[in-house]
């Protein structure tokens, strides 16, 4: 924990990146910041919970977007007053945030406990079932949402200007990134990795394995809930289609594109997805080769396939490999890339 240890290349890189991102509203168009980057931050946090569960716990979850949605629905139910649907509790928005996060965390605890004795493909399938059931719960229980969803959801005045939402997303992203990384070396992170590597051994060392999985899922749900609150602030509405199986899969795809065992990959995957979604159709002549908006999902599928073939570790894995190759002959050249961002900025 000396200053020297803090001065790793990773930390310097991260600090540089954060500086660039903080400066982004001064550099880029409002749309790029408020649409592309804000979404990247929110979705990145949500995808990071997938990475967290996969990397530390060995659990690939399809239910994370459901939890994002639960938080959104709960915030909407709590904060909206006199709306057409939902509970219309009319709470103070910040109290509504607490309400939403508490409920989401509790839901995650219950879902996590139910899934805590399954692993691998069974866990994936079970969380898929959660996602499907979640959709129907909100579509069918009209007291909470109904098919039309909760609309006219206002964010707190403090968060009014869109750029603040971006900063909130950025701060949350940095906290979640650092938090998840630090957790990997803290007791709970280590125990979780132990559970991932060998649950039987962990039990014989005295650990309650199902409880560890449950609490990991709960923690991931808590973080997904934070992302969900941001998301519903950004979007202003949420409906069952928001949490249908499509968006759930897309979140997993983001994590996979980025590299499911790298936390950086979560944000990178989200960024690439949002970029592709937003700008792909603007490429000249792109529709001449059949890539129209209507084929967007096909394109994303092809991109995923390509990345998987090139590197099962996703883009982050590719980046890491390229870096290692470049770095091997001349390992002491950190200044060259570090100069990149500043000069470009």
């Amino acid at each position, binding site marked *: 924990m000396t200053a020297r240890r803090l001065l790793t290349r990773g930390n310097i890189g991260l600090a540089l990146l954060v500086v660039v991102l903080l400066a982004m509203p001064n550099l880029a168009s409002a749309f790029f910041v408020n649409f592309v980057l804000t979404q990247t931050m929110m979705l990145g946090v949500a995808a990071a919970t997938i990475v967290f569960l996969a990397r530390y716990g060995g659990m690939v979850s399809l239910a994370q977007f459901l939890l994002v949605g639960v938080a959104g629905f709960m915030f909407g139910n709590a904060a909206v007053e006199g709306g057409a649907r939902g509970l219309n509790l009319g709470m103070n928005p910040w109290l509504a945030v607490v309400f939403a996060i508490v409920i989401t965390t509790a839901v995650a605890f219950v879902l996590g406990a139910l899934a805590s004795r399954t692993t691998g493909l069974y866990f994936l399938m079970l969380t898929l079932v959660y996602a499907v059931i979640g959709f129907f719960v909100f579509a069918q229980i009209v007291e909470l949402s109904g098919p039309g969803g909760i609309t006219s959801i206002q964010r707190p005045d403090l968060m009014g200007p869109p750029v603040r939402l971006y900063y909130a997303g950025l701060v949350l992203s940095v906290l979640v990134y650092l938090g998840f990384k*630090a*957790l990997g*070396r*803290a*007791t*709970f992170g*280590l*125990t979780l*990795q*132990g559970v*991932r*590597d*060998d649950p*039987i*051994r*962990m*039990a*014989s*060392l*005295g*650990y*309650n*394995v199902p409880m*560890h999985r449950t*609490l990991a899922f709960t923690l991931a749900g808590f973080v997904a809930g934070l992302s969900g609150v941001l998301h519903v602030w950004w979007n202003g509405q949420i409906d069952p289609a928001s949490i249908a199986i499509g968006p759930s899969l897309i979140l997993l795809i983001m994590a996979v594109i980025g590299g499911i065992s790298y936390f950086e990959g979560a944000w990178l995957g989200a960024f690439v997805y949002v970029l592709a979604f937003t700008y792909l159709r603007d490429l000249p002549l792109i529709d001449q080769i059949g890539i129209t908006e209507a084929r967007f999902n096909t394109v994303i599928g092809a991109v995923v396939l390509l990345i998987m073939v090139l590197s099962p570790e996703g883009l982050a894995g590719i980046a890491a490999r390229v870096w290692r190759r470049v770095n091997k002959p001349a390992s002491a050249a950190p200044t060259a890339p570090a100069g990149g961002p500043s000069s470009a900025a």
Partner: protein
Amino acid sequence: MTQTTPAPAVPAIADPVIQVRSVVVAFGGLLALKGIDLDVTRGERLAILGPNGAGKTTLFNVIAGDITPTDGTVAIKGRDCTFLPSRHRPRLGMARTYQKARSFDGLTIRENIYLALAGHRGRHWPLWRSPVDRRLDEEATEVAESVWLGDHLDTAAGELAHGQKRQLELGMAIATQPDVMLLDEPASGLSRGERERLVELLDSLAGEVTLLLIEHDMEVAFSLSQRVVVMADGAMVTAGTPEQIQSDPDVHEIYLGVEASS
């Protein structure tokens, strides 16, 4: 079958640490244990011999709580633990190693041992590091040094050579300073030099530590144990001192003979 029946070979003892009574384990139709009785006293060094498939590991699994016996009971330190899950064993002072090394391959040696220590101390949940962790890390370092892994503290367990993995297994078991240790073939795959060091290490354990040892290597088994139990085909065949067992012709036939041919 033999004049030395298992039951009288178990002396009526004053201070039983492990009491296994008529334990039966069935895997589907296969009877892996066919009614085992075994008492172990405090501080005893017991070796369990027997050919592959005899049921030795299964017996360990029952004692350690990794599997629940189909029938029979297991008591540890006077407490009925037949249905007690394995995760409660460390609190009873028990630690075990596995025949096929079960280390956390994604974690470093230090972290592996840390988990053994933290598990024993009940430090399972903290979300951030604290000075306690630093002390545990220091302890883990000492443990690693004691099993000759001091130079590899930051090596991932998955990258260790076979022998080193066995050393790590042992380190994770002794880390918590248990008073009951179950070691499943600790010497298998070790070089001659490593075996000698292993014997030396186990010899140095405090006298009150109860040690159960499954071992194929006669030299290791006999040099470490006070009593030897021989199993075959899910049953106990004979028991006695190392000298008695060495000279037992039945043992030679059912165990050493098999061993020699395999």
